[in-house]
């Protein structure tokens, strides 16, 4: 095989970024069946894969919000190479509303930072992973109203192309609540077994597809593979 006579060195540019906020459930029930252990292993594999991906390693910034009865931004949006996964403990309730809001705030803050620094960016993602039903004690009597408010905020974000929102249910999660907060183009996914590693592999490929302009609905529904139980409504 002859060598191609065309060759050229490319200039150095700062890569445009895409933020992914992972809102992960660390409530007490996540300790059952080693769910949290599997999720953390999946996260570690995801970060490693992004680090090794020429296309994503300088493009994807990952942030993590861990929640139980309280929520914490445990990892601020960073390139995969700069992330050190914190120790996550399974304990407490499932106060989802504040946590999802914190994830939305995280991508919003990062977009503001990009704009301030003259950086272009791809549409960010908020990924919500839970194994249970949201805890209505979070807002007492106002819980249902607050959940509807959150659902409206997420749907508006889809119309205004502010961020993509995806919910992943694990094991015995209750899909009814997650169905209410989904975006029209992105179904609620139910994980088959605890194949977090496969899920995150699919996620990085999907984000890359959307980043180059592919239709979100089409990208999320292609090749979900073994991790998807196929029971999620679409």
């Amino acid at each position: 095989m002859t060598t191609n006579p065309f060759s050229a060195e490319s200039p150095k540019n700062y890569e445009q970024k895409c933020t992914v906020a992972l809102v992960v459930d660390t409530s007490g029930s996540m300790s059952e069946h080693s769910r949290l252990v599997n999720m953390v292993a999946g996260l570690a594999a995801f970060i490693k894969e992004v680090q090794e991906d020429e296309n994503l390693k300088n493009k994807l910034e990952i942030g993590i919000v861990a929640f139980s009865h309280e929520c914490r931004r445990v990892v601020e949006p960073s390139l995969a190479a700069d992330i050190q996964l914190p120790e996550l403990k399974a304990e407490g309730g499932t106060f989802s509303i504040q946590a999802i809001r914190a994830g939305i705030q995280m991508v919003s803050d990062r977009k503001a930072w990009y704009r301030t620094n003259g950086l272009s960016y791809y549409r960010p993602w908020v990924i919500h992973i839970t194994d249970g039903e949201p805890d209505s004690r979070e807002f007492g009597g106002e819980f249902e109203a607050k959940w509807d408010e959150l659902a409206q905020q997420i749907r508006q974000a889809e119309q205004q192309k502010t961020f993509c929102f995806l919910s992943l249910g694990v094991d015995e999660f209750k899909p009814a609540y997650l169905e209410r907060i989904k975006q029209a183009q992105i179904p609620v996914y139910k994980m088959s077994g605890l194949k977090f590693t496969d899920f995150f592999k699919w996620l990085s490929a999907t984000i890359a597809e959307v980043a180059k302009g592919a239709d979100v609905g089409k990208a999320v529904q292609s090749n979900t593979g073994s991790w998807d139980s196929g029971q999620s409504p679409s």
Partner: protein
Amino acid sequence: MPENAWAALLIVVLGFALGCFYMSRKKDRKTARRLRKERRQLNSGHQVTDPEAPPRVLSDAEEVPEFNGAEGVIKLRQDLEKTNNANATLQSELKALGLRLKKVQTERDSLVKKVQTQDEQLQTLRAQAQQAEIEQRAQAKAKVSAPVDAPDFPPPQVKVLTGSTGGQWRHACGSVHGSEKTTDQCQDRSQLVVTSGGKFVILAVADGAGSLKYSNLGAEEAVTAAARVARDVLESIESSGEALTRQEFLRISNKAFVGALEAVSSRAEREKRNAHEYGSTLILLIAGPDCTACAHIGDGRAGCCLRDGQWIPLLSPMKGGEANMTKFLTHLRDEPGLVQANFIPLSSSAVFCISDGCENASWFTKTKSQYRAHGPLVDPNIPSADFWASIAMTVVELPGQLMTKGMAQPEVQNETDRLFAQFILAGNPTLKAERDDKTIALAVNLP
């Protein structure tokens, strides 16, 4: 009775009377002493109830009056009663004062406690405010600090092209799929046409919207129509021997973009679909003996190398908030002033345009500012002289090399374009990593 007996009786009577008088006086004195003692005790009692008051000393005027019989006793008793009453009143007032004092002390304790709590709260608030200020400063610092790993602003890109094409246009053009894309087809389209007289070269590049179903068809219609319209007008100018003026170029670009929109709309109509589904960008670049000109809608880049070796941009890409947001040819229907045009009355050694999939590989698009090293990043929009000069020189030299191998002229161009497409696909790590569709159209003209 003898006189002595009367005298003795008189003495006894007088002695009895004196004894009675003496006993009466003694009893009064005793009473007076008792009263005086009681008054002293009363005075002592005042001292006990009011420790601040000086000890009361009876003045001479207040000296207990001399015994004045039964009246004196009654008066003294009345005085004593009055004093007792006054004492009882004072005791009662004292008790009330004691209770009030206790209440005031309780209130004072409560207030002290409240103040202490408020002090603690104030200290907490101060600490919080201090922390917030620190965070705010850190955020402000982060806001004004550009990413440290961003490359520096590029120096002026100057590199003179050497060699010769004999005044002819030599070219290479190709559109390829994103490197790891397995579904759909390439949504970029490009055309490169040299007018029949060989004076002008026309480069047309369209990038179909990734999210629109028929954007590849729209891109195809757009480049074909725009190149055809431009070619027709330029060949008539060429045959008349006139030069291409700015006004003439604006007329051509207007006609080419309207023609391209009509072609897309007609296709959508024929296929009974909404023309919006055929959205794509469009860049039209024309270069001739006396001019280099470009018009566009959307993103992508175009540039040229002037005869003095300066590599300069010919358009500013239309970009939205997000990286892949831009304008499409189909928007021209609602925004008639959307086309941006640029005319330079100078000839070029090389002209080129690309879709946005190639911009990171061939252009300086995101670096630190040349004015503020720690300020926001900027888009220098400068073509990389190293990148473009390298492939331009290959375009100049390759045909000769292929012909020496016995390849005929039509095959030479096909082979050049084939090798060029391979290069666009994965010619260097940056091109290889890019998953978007990629297009490069390049034409070189050296004396």
